[in-house]
């Protein structure tokens, strides 16, 4: 099984594209995960840049439905998926539906997404995310039952926050196992009962949170290895503030987002892909291992 690691563009928007891509390549990522632009010229520019750096692409379909009602969301789904497809993504990560849409409305969106994805020949995963149809562990089960083809992006940090727990109750652990059976992509972010992202996963006070997430991810990777999946994708996905806690008044983030993801990349490569991964440059590994907290 080939494990392929993606860098989120989220939080790096301030960088010129060429600078971002050079950083991604130098850091040892295999690709980029980012929101697909509605602008065709911008998509073409990114596509050429990524191809020239041999970076793979996962497209996030996020704008469809942003701040809109069900009717607009459904109407725009196909357009946004087609836009993503022009960038030849390995996968599309869809932020689908709303927690407050009815089961029937969310189901219509899932059905449309599946139809378009299959027609375009690109695998689509639905992200486990607060505010979406996937927002809560138990709320997801009826959709899994109704849609045997439904595939997920596992981001359990959101469920930690929504359930205000580490999902250890038997009923919630069952939901996690069901989701693991449908997950084809992993967002490796560490959440906790009081928020979707710990301040710094390297800090000892978050050992339990990190350990629990690693146990889920271990199982997910092991399942795909056992199934003979050809290529499994992981995006270390610590986000910028306000996901990343920041100090009051100055809004200084309490850690460096880039460093957090580089550390997670190094951890996961050493854990899951010591024998097959394109290894990280030595200086990145050292830096990730020894990086101090940004705020004492």
């Amino acid at each position, binding site marked *: 099984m080939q494990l392929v690691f993606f860098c989120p563009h989220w939080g790096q928007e301030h960088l010129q594209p060429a600078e971002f891509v050079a950083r991604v390549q130098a850091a040892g990522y295999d690709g980029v995960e980012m929101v697909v632009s509605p602008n065709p010229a911008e998509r073409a520019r990114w596509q050429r840049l990524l191809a020239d*750096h041999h970076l*793979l692409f996962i497209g996030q379909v996020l704008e469809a439905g942003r701040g809109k009602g069900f009717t607009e969301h459904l109407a725009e789904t196909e357009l946004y998926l087609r836009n993503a497809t022009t960038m030849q993504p390995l996968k599309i990560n869809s932020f689908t539906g709303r927690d407050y849409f009815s089961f029937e409305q969310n189901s219509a969106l899932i059905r449309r997404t599946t139809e378009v994805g299959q027609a375009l020949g690109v695998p689509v995963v639905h992200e486990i995310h607060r505010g979406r149809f996937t927002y809560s562990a138990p709320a997801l089960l009826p959709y899994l039952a109704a849609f045997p083809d439904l595939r997920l992006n596992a981001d359990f940090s959101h469920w930690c926050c929504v359930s205000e727990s580490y999902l250890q109750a038997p009923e919630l652990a069952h939901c996690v196992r069901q989701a693991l059976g449908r997950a084809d992509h992993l967002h490796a972010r560490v959440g906790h009962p009081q928020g979707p992202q710990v301040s710094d996963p390297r800090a000892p006070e978050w050992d339990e949170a990190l350990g629990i997430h690693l146990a889920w991810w271990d199982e997910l990777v092991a399942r795909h290895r056992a199934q003979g999946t050809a290529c499994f994708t992981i995006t270390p996905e610590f986000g910028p503030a306000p996901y990343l806690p920041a100090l009051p008044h100055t809004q200084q983030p309490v850690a460096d987002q880039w460093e957090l993801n580089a550390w997670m990349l190094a951890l996961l490569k050493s854990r899951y892909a010591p024998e097959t991964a*394109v290894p990280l440059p030595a200086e990145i590994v050292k830096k990730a291992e020894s990086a101090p907290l940004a705020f004492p």
Partner: protein
Amino acid sequence: MTIYPEDLPALAESKRLSTTQIQEFRTLGHTLTRGVLSPAEVAAYRPVIEQAAECYNTEARPLAARDTYGKAFLQIMNLWRADERVRRFVLARRFAQLAADLLGVENVRIYHDQALFKEPGGGPTPWHQDQHYWPLDTTNTITMWMPLVDIDADMGMLTFASGSHRRGAVFDHEISDTSAAEFDRYVRENDFPVTRAATMRAGDATWHYGFTIHQAPGNQSTQMREVMTIIYLADGARVVAPHHQAQHNDHARWLQHLPAGALAASELNPLVL
């Protein structure tokens, strides 16, 4: 018997590649496509390419008298410019469409072709990166490597360090005994998976990026390993100023001294699709 270009199969586009295969290429830096040519198509083109390669080969030294590079193969380049029948092969839309699909572009240009005939007893081709030679502003480049005879691992099967394309240029080396030792260590120390097909039929093809580190073992059989290669670059690529002598040589020979910044579109670099 004379073979005229128009008597040869046209090699029009065939079925498109699956998304899975395209993504495999981009992830690993190489892929294998089976049956790109049918046995009948191979049978038509093989004698033409053999004839042209024999006619234009300039290597006269016996194997023992050659350096590492010279022992690796007989290398005859841009046969398409010398022979209208080979031109039909090299400018075939079938190959170019596969190349464009793998690179993710609408069209590709020819960089050059290379007949690589590894003689019985011919030596290994050490690990190297083709892109090293190319003064281009893009690394979105690809080589089709097609045997014209059935081959197995003992006949000098092209061998890849999977995923090695992602690191860009590794050393500033042309193929030599020195580069062999350094690349060997690099590939080993970085734990790249080393991948090769066990067998290829005539008309199968492998594809690799310019930066994919690759090598070929020696030919331990008693049969000539006849391979035809075509190197393509993504349309829209531009020339950059050569960084070293090898690039100067390529700049002169394959890009006709186009100025830096110009489209890589000399008379020798036609669009194919």
